[in-house]
């Protein structure tokens, strides 16, 4: 719980630093991308802080390259 609170506090601080200049310059698209990334970042951090398992992108890559890997392993025997 404490960890989530801390992460939310940090996220608020980031919002306070980043958003006013963006609004001032009317960068709408930047603001949208920034918010999406921040939501993902906060979500992942809280999930990690609470000890939930986060899917590992390396496993996805291993799965993608498995056929190639098998062929090379077979050839280099």
């Amino acid at each position, binding site marked *: 719980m404490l960890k989530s609170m801390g992460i939310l506090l940090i996220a608020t601080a*980031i919002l306070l*630093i*980043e958003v006013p200049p*963006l609004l001032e310059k009317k*960068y709408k*698209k*930047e*603001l949208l*991308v*920034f918010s999406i*990334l*921040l939501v*993902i*970042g*906060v979500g*992942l*951090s809280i999930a*990690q802080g609470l000890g939930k398992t*986060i899917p*590992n*992108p*390396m496993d996805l*890559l*291993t799965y993608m*390259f498995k056929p*190639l*890997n098998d062929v*090379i392993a077979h050839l*280099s025997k």
Partner: protein
Amino acid sequence: MMQNVKINSYQFLILVTLFSIGTSILIVPSVLATAAKQDAWIVAIFGTGIGLLVIWLFCTLAQWFPHLTFIQVTEKILGKWVGKAVSLLFVFMSFIYASSLLFYSGTFLNTHLMPNTPMVALNILMAIIIVMGVRLGLETIARSAEILILFFFVLFLFLVLFISPEVKFENVQPVYEAGTRTIVQSSLSFIEVTSVNAIVLLMIFPAFINKFKQAKKSFLIGNLIGGIVIIILTFLSVSVLGADNTAAEFYPSYELAKRINLGDFIQRIEALMAALWIIALYFKTTLYFYASVLGIAQILNLKDYRPLTIPLGMIVVVLSLVIYPNVVYQQNWNATTGIFFSYSIGLFLPLLLVVVYAIRKKQLKKSPESSSV
């Protein structure tokens, strides 16, 4: 989109050098010694030679579009949608590698220097300075590299001078026992770390350099200097520690620093030498992170990349804790999937771009916007 950031070719030389040394300084000697035993240093020489060819390929690709970054080049050559999809893969790679390097620095500090500090804290500290560097821009990164490289090479010189009395030439004999086949095979991972991954430098190489001709030379020279540093370190690790110890050790060059003993007076200075690793790792991670942040901004046609740095920094820290559950997984992944992943983006993709460019040359030349931005 274009920031008016320009660095000169000397600064670029330093960035390339630090990038090539980057992670190789920590892990490459051990990886090479596992397969090639006492001939690890021959593998490093061979790998540096092939690596220069790879860099030459990057230069060729870059000189056709001297004002565009790699993301814009793929978009230009492959068309808008295919280009964007391929660029996404490229950004994904640099982002994943940024977090994996964060994992390296975290584990290194955690196992050797600060065993009681949780790895999250070390990763967050490192990530904060990386985000800081990227927010301040490429010029600031390049200037700080200019200062720190002096420090780096002085320490490196100390390491080489102080350890040289311990060199035992029996450890590298018999020379060339491994045979050509093993040498070529094990050089693959060396080329991957020092040269193929240097594709992320194409995000800064033609676009943000003020003199292209000199920069091309410094790309090659920087890679060569990086290669020579790794060759020296590999040779020293094998000849001081022996081939089997080098292979068994996870950070052989750190072990090397522990062996320094000058007249029973100068000894155990490895904590000082750790500065070498931290400097090199920091710049490599920063360049990866810079490439991914700028890449995302350019794919989405944003006017400024700076707002994205902090949220992406948060994601990088989380990923760095997740991507490698343990060191065995890491070594296994690096030896199999990592190689294919790097080669398909760092070597196959540029080759594909070269071929497509050769086919579409006339068509691309006709459209006026390809010559200038």
